[in-house]
C-alpha cells in the first residue's frame, strides 16, 4: 500500500511535465482493496481491471518499470506504448488487462474463470469494478452467468461514491446497497470499509478458498474514496461537486494510516520509514529508465493488428 501510494503521488507530481501523454486515473486513497485482495491470490490467478488500474496492476505483481514506461509511451511499456495508463497488462502475473470502457472487463473476467474451469485448472479470476459499473447491464448478465455456473470469480466493487463528477445519489436508487446485487444473483456478498486492508484480505482469503473449492463466486463492495480528481493529478474540491469536509473526513480514515497504526507495535516507526525511503528510491530509478527508453519505431503502428498465424487442430496447449 505504501509503495502504491508513493507511485501514485510520484505520477501526480510528474504528470504536469506533460511527458506522460495519456489520460491517467490515480487511486490515491483507494489502496486497500487492490492490496488486500491481490495478496490472497496466486500469481497464476487472473485479475482484470478498468481505467483506474495502477493499484490492481501493481498489487497483482505487475512490473513497475513497465507500467511507468507504458505511461511514457515507450517501447518497453507493458503494452509497448500502444495502450497507455488505461491499458495495463502483465500476463506473467495473471494480470489479463485493463480497459476504460466501464464494466467491459466484468464479463471477460467471468470468461477467464469459465475458461480455467473448462481446462481443469484451479485458477480464480478477480475483477475490479467501480460503483458506476453496476449501472451497466453487462454486469448483471455477468453476475447471473457466474452464479449459474458457480464460477471461481470474485467481483470487487470499489465504491468511491463518484462516477467522474456525479455522485451516487444521482445514479443509483437509495436504499439499495451495491453488495446486495450479489444477493440478487445468489452470490455470497459483503460490504467492507476501504480503510481496513486486513478485513479485506480476510474476506478475499475466504472468497478465494470458496471459489477454488468450486463453491462459486463472491461479490465484495468496498467503501472507499479517491482523494484526487477523476482523471489527472490534482485535487478538485474547487469544482464544487464534493466538499472539502467530505474529502477531509475520508482522509481521516486513510487506509495507510490505519495499517501503519496496526503495524507500529510489531515493526516500529523506523522500519516503516525505511520502507518508504526504499520505495522512493526504486521509483526514481523507474522513472529514469522509462524516460531513457526508446519510443516505438514508426513501423510499430502497423504491427499487431493481426497475428497472422494459426494453430492446427489438436496442437498447442
Amino acid at each position, binding site marked *: 500500500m505504501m509503495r502504491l501510494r508513493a507511485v501514485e503521488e510520484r505520477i501526480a507530481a510528474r*504528470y504536469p511535465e*506533460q511527458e506522460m*501523454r*495519456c*489520460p*491517467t486515473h490515480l487511486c490515491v486513497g483507494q489502496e486497500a482493496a487492490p492490496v488486500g485482495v491481490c495478496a490472497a491470490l496466486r500469481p497464476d490467478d487472473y485479475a482484470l481491471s478498468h481505467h483506474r488500474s495502477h493499484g490492481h496492476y501493481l498489487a497483482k505483481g505487475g512490473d513497475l518499470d513497465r507500467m511507468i514506461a507504458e505511461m511514457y*509511451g*515507450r517501447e518497453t*511499456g507493458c*503494452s509497448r*506504448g*500502444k*495502450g*497507455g*495508463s*488505461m*491499458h495495463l497488462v502483465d500476463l506473467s502475473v495473471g494480470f489479463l488487462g485493463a*480497459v*476504460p*470502457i*466501464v*464494466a467491459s472487463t466484468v464479463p471477460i473476467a467471468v470468461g477467464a474463470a469459465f475458461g480455467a474451469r473448462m481446462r481443469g485448472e484451479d485458477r480464480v479470476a478477480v475483477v475490479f469494478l467501480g460503483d*458506476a*459499473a453496476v*449501472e*451497466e*447491464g*453487462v454486469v448483471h448478465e455477468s453476475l447471473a452467468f457466474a452464479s449459474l455456473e458457480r464460477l471461481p470469480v470474485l467481483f470487487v466493487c470499489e465504491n468511491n461514491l463518484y*462516477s*467522474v*463528477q*456525479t455522485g451516487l445519489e*444521482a*445514479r*443509483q436508487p437509495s436504499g439499495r446497497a451495491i453488495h446486495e446485487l450479489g444477493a440478487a444473483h445468489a452470490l455470497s456478498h459483503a460490504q467492507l470499509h476501504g480503510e481496513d486492508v486486513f478485513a479485506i484480505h480476510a474476506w478475499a482469503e475466504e472468497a478465494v478458498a470458496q471459489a477454488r473449492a468450486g463453491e462459486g463466486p463472491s461479490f465484495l463492495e468496498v467503501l472507499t474514496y479517491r482523494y484526487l480528481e477523476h*482523471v*489527472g493529478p490534482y485535487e478538485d474540491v474547487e*469544482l*464544487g*461537486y464534493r466538499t472539502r469536509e467530505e474529502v477531509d473526513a475520508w482522509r481521516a480514515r486513510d487506509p495507510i494510516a490505519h495499517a501503519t497504526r496496526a503495524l507500529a507495535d510489531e515493526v516500529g516507526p523506523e522500519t516503516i520509514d525505511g520502507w518508504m525511503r526504499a520505495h522512493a528510491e526504486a521509483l526514481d530509478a523507474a522513472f529514469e529508465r522509462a524516460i531513457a527508453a526508446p*519510443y*516505438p519505431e*514508426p513501423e*510499430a*503502428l*502497423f504491427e499487431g*493488428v493481426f497475428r497472422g498465424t494459426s494453430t492446427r487442430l489438436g496442437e498447442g496447449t
Partner: protein
Amino acid sequence: MSRVIPYHEALREALALCLEHDPRVYLMGLGVPDPKGLFGSTTGLVDRFGPERVRDMPASENAMTGVALGSALAGMRPVLSHQRVDFALLAMEQMVNQVAKWHYMFGGQRPVPILIRMIVGRGWGQGAQHSQSLLSWFAHVPGLTVIAPATPHDAKALTLAAIESDDPVISFEHRWCFNVKGEVPEGIVRAPLGEAHVVREGADVTIVASSYMVLEAMRAAEQLAEDGVDAEVIDLRTVAPLDRVTLARSVRKTGHLVAADIGWTSFGVGAEVVSAVVEDAFDALRSAPRRVASPDVPSPSTPALSAGFWPRARAIVDAARAQLGRAPLPAEGPPPFPLDVPDPTFTGPF
C-alpha cells in the same frame, strides 16, 4: 449579429435555445449537469433549466437510449449525449435496431425526434477505446441522419436543426473542434440537414471533408494556393444522407477528388464519397480519386505513433498534388509541437 465564440459555446447556445423554446426538449447524458459540462457544451444549463430537463444519468447507455426513445414516442424531444463515441457503442442495439427502425417498421405512425450527440476523441494518448470516429457505422444504417459539425457556426446551426428534426439524428462532435473559435450569429440559426456546404470555391481539385478534417482541408487549400493550386473544399456537414449532387457538381468542375475523413480508410466515409462520385460523375474524373484517412489500425496511445495515425493537412496536399501530376513537396521537418494535441495550448489529460 455575429460574434466570435468557441465551438463548445455555440453548442451550448443551440441547446439553451431549444430548451427555452420547446418544453418537450430535455438533455440527458453522463456529466451533462456536472461542473465541467461535457467540455463546456452544457455548463450552467442545469442552473437555468433545472435538473429535470438537464439530467445526468446512470452509466447505462443502452437502457437510457431506449428510455430516450420511449420518451420521444410519448411526445418528448430528447437530446442524449455521450462523452465519447466509444461509450455509445454499448447502446448499439437500441440505436440500430430500435431508434433507426421504429418509424419505418411501424408504418410511419410516430416521429422519433431524438438527437444523440457523440464526441470523437483524438490524441493525448487516449488510445484504442477513446478515440474512434465511427461515422460510417451510423451512416450505413437507414433511418439515421448523421451530422458532423466542423465549425462553431455549424455546431449551433446543425444542432438546432437536428433537435427540430422529426427524425433521429446522430451528431459527431470532434473534441479537436471544441476550442476552435468562429463567427456565430446570435439567436436562432439553422443549417439544412442533408446538404453539403462549399466552404471554399476552387477550380482545380475538390477536397471533400467532414468534421475536424474540414479544418485540415482548409489548411491544405491554403498551402495548395501558395503553389497556384485552386482547391474547392466541401464540408459534408451531413454525412448521411449524403449530398451527392453537390459532390458531383464540384467534381464536374475540377475533375479531381480527394476525400478526407476522420475515420479509418477502409469502408469509411471517404470510401462512400469516392463511390458516389465515381457513380455520378465518372466521365468528369481526370485522375483516380484518393482517400486521406487513418490507416486501418487501432489508435495507438504513444505520441510516437500519432503522426503516422492521424493524417493532417499535409497528407491532403500530397494527395492533391499527386492527382494534378505535380512533384511531391520536400519531406517536412520535425513538427513544431507534438502531433498528439491540436495546438500547444492543449495540455491534457483530455
